[in-house]
Every structure is written in C-alpha cells, then in structure tokens.
C-alpha cells in the first residue's frame, strides 16, 4: 500500500530543536522511524505564510504555531514571524541532511500538484498496485481513543 504522511519526523527535527531540544537527541529518539521513499518540503517565505494564515479561511494564528509558549514577543504575529523563521532555518539544514524534495509552495496549487504527480509517478514506475478489498474500504486498524491535544 501507499502511505501518505501529512508531516513526518522532520517536523520534530525542526520544531523541537527551535524549542531547545538537542538536535542529536531528537534524531536518536526518532531512529525507529522508517525513512520515507520520498519526502517533500513545501517551502514558502515567512511573509507569505503569515498573509495566507491571516487572510485565509482560518483568519488567525494558533498559540503553539506562533511559538507563544517561548515568550518571544507579546504580539502573536511578531512571535510567529520569529518562531517560524527559526523553523525555516532548521528546515534548510534538514533538506540537505535528509534529502527532502523542495517544492516551491508560492506557486498555485495546480502547478504544485502537477509537479508532485510527475515526481511521484516517476518514483512509482515499477510499483505494482495491490488491493485486498476490491475497492471496499474497511477500518484497517482501530485503536483506543486518546483525547485530542490540538
């Protein structure tokens, strides 16, 4: 099967290091993770991120994504700018270290999606699709409920 993961260990490599965790430690912690066959990094300049979050359907920033727990600035947008800029700097290191594919996320969605499909299609050239249920979707794995933290 094909697994699509929305964020992966690289998120922790970037965020947790900005929060003061040792870069070596966080990599050892996640050493049990399976290295993905492909990993994409959608890159946007900080100002684009801010204007999208403030101008889009959400219209506001979240407490932790603005790094408000770190006392960087009383103003949430300013705190977001500082915190996320540090995260972007970490991602730049991770892109090289972990061979992430950088996508220009300032382009429109269709252009990005076409580019992704081209890259994924190439990677799946020799992949034989397999299905167990002839298209009927069933619950594969049911786990106990854990209260949502976010």
């Amino acid at each position: 099967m094909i697994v699509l993961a929305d964020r992966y260990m690289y998120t922790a490599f970037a965020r947790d290091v900005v929060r003061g965790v040792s870069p070596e430690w966080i990599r050892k912690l996640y050493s049990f993770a399976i290295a993905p066959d492909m990993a994409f990094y959608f890159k946007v300049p900080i100002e684009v991120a801010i204007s999208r979050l403030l101008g889009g359907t959400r219209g506001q920033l979240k407490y932790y994504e603005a790094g408000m727990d770190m006392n960087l600035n009383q103003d949430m947008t300013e705190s977001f700018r500082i915190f996320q800029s540090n995260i972007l700097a970490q991602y730049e290191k991770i892109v090289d270290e972990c061979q992430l594919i950088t996508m220009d996320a300032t382009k429109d969605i269709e252009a990005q999606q076409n580019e992704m499909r081209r890259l994924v299609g190439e990677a799946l050239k020799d992949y034989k699709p397999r299905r167990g249920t002839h298209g009927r979707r069933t619950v594969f794995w049911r786990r106990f409920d854990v209260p949502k933290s976010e």
Partner: protein
Amino acid sequence: MVDARYFGDGLTYLNPNDLKGKLIAIEGTDGVGRSTHIEMLQEWLEVQGYGVLTTGWTRSNLMSKTIEMAKEGNILDRWSFSLLYATDFADRLEHEIIPALRSGFIVLADRYIYTAFARDFVRSGNRQWVRDVFGFALVPDLVCYLRIDVETLVLRVIETKGMNFWESGMDLRLGGDLYDSFKKYQSLLIEEFDKMAEEFHFEVVDARKSPDEIQTELRSKIQPLLTPHLRTPELPSDRTIQPAPTS
C-alpha cells in the same frame, strides 16, 4: 547536586549545576515495598527539617490518564510503551523534579529511568535506543535497588494484590498463563536490574529482610548525602523578632 549531570543529551536550556537539592531513586521490581519505604523515608527526613518531594512513575498530570487508557487497550507496542513513559518522566522532570531540586529539596523518586531501561530491554533486546531517549534525565545522587528473588516475589504478590496483565508482561507471550508469564517476565527484569546494579553502581538492599531492617539500611545509605544547608534555615536567636517598642 554536586557535579550534577545529565545521563546523555541534556536539556540545552538548563545547567544542572544550579540544582541544590539531592535526587534519590528507589528502584526494584513490582511488589518489593518501594512505596512503603518511600513514605517512611519522607517522614524521617521531614521531621529532621528537610524539604522532601516524592515523585512516582506514571504519576504526571500530563500522562497518567493516557497511560491508564493505553494499558486498558492492551495493545501497546515497544515504541509507544517506552515513549509514553518517557513523556511522563519528562513532564515530571520539568515540572516537579527540577523545581524541587532548585529549591534545595530532597527528591525521592519511586522508580527512575532504570525501570524503563529494564522494561524496554526485555521487550527489544536492545539497550541503546531507550538510553538515548532518556538522555535528558538527571543522574541521581543515589540509587537504592530493593532486590528480591523471583520465588519470594511470586509468594508476596499472590498473598497481596495478585498479578496483573502488565506486571506479568503478558504482551510478551512468555508463558501460557498469568503465573508462568509473571515469573518469566519478572526474572528477566531482575536479571537486567542486576546487570545495571553493577554498571550504574546501585546500592543494593535485600528486599527479603524485614521492613524495619530495610528501612534502617536505606537510611544509612541516605545519611551521607544529608548536609546541614539542605535543612530549613533557622533564625539565629539574636535575630528573633522583638516586640515593638511602646511609646
């Protein structure tokens, strides 16, 4: 803590040398009487004027309920098992242990990272990963290991609270029933604790002795750590408050 240090990769924002208190870990398998002895130690220390904080495995505000829930599901695998406990420990370290040590308290830890090391090793056969994970832990000033043999432990547990799924390591399928599994699982843990006792220089206390003898032995191990500056300061007699002069 004199020459305080982290076990591995520590917290980059905290210098452990700023911690004035003492950290004492009490280790040992299930049913050796850790909580009873810790309660007695706390009273003994408090009566002498020391500030004491007791902290116990899985008792963090953040994680205790989640761990209970996960255990009820009976489908914890190695990684989620160890990471839940590591998260619980991290929460207690930052919110209980470090603040208490910073204010000069004696911290009594009911189980410490060595419990996680033993349990993870028994499940994975690998020692390194879990030790790396707990790199941010402070190395205790003293680790007392209440050691018991599995035969005595079995009798004691059956006589008191009985065996449960996780204490029997039923997730490991070591034996056909709770009893067999308990014996095999606890033997493996004791074996690993014995190895760590040498590696990390635990003070080993024979948990088959009477509670009084054990308590006396524990106190004698702790005594050398107690320095006068840990006690609640007393005002010198010439500085006691005088009644306000009447005019």
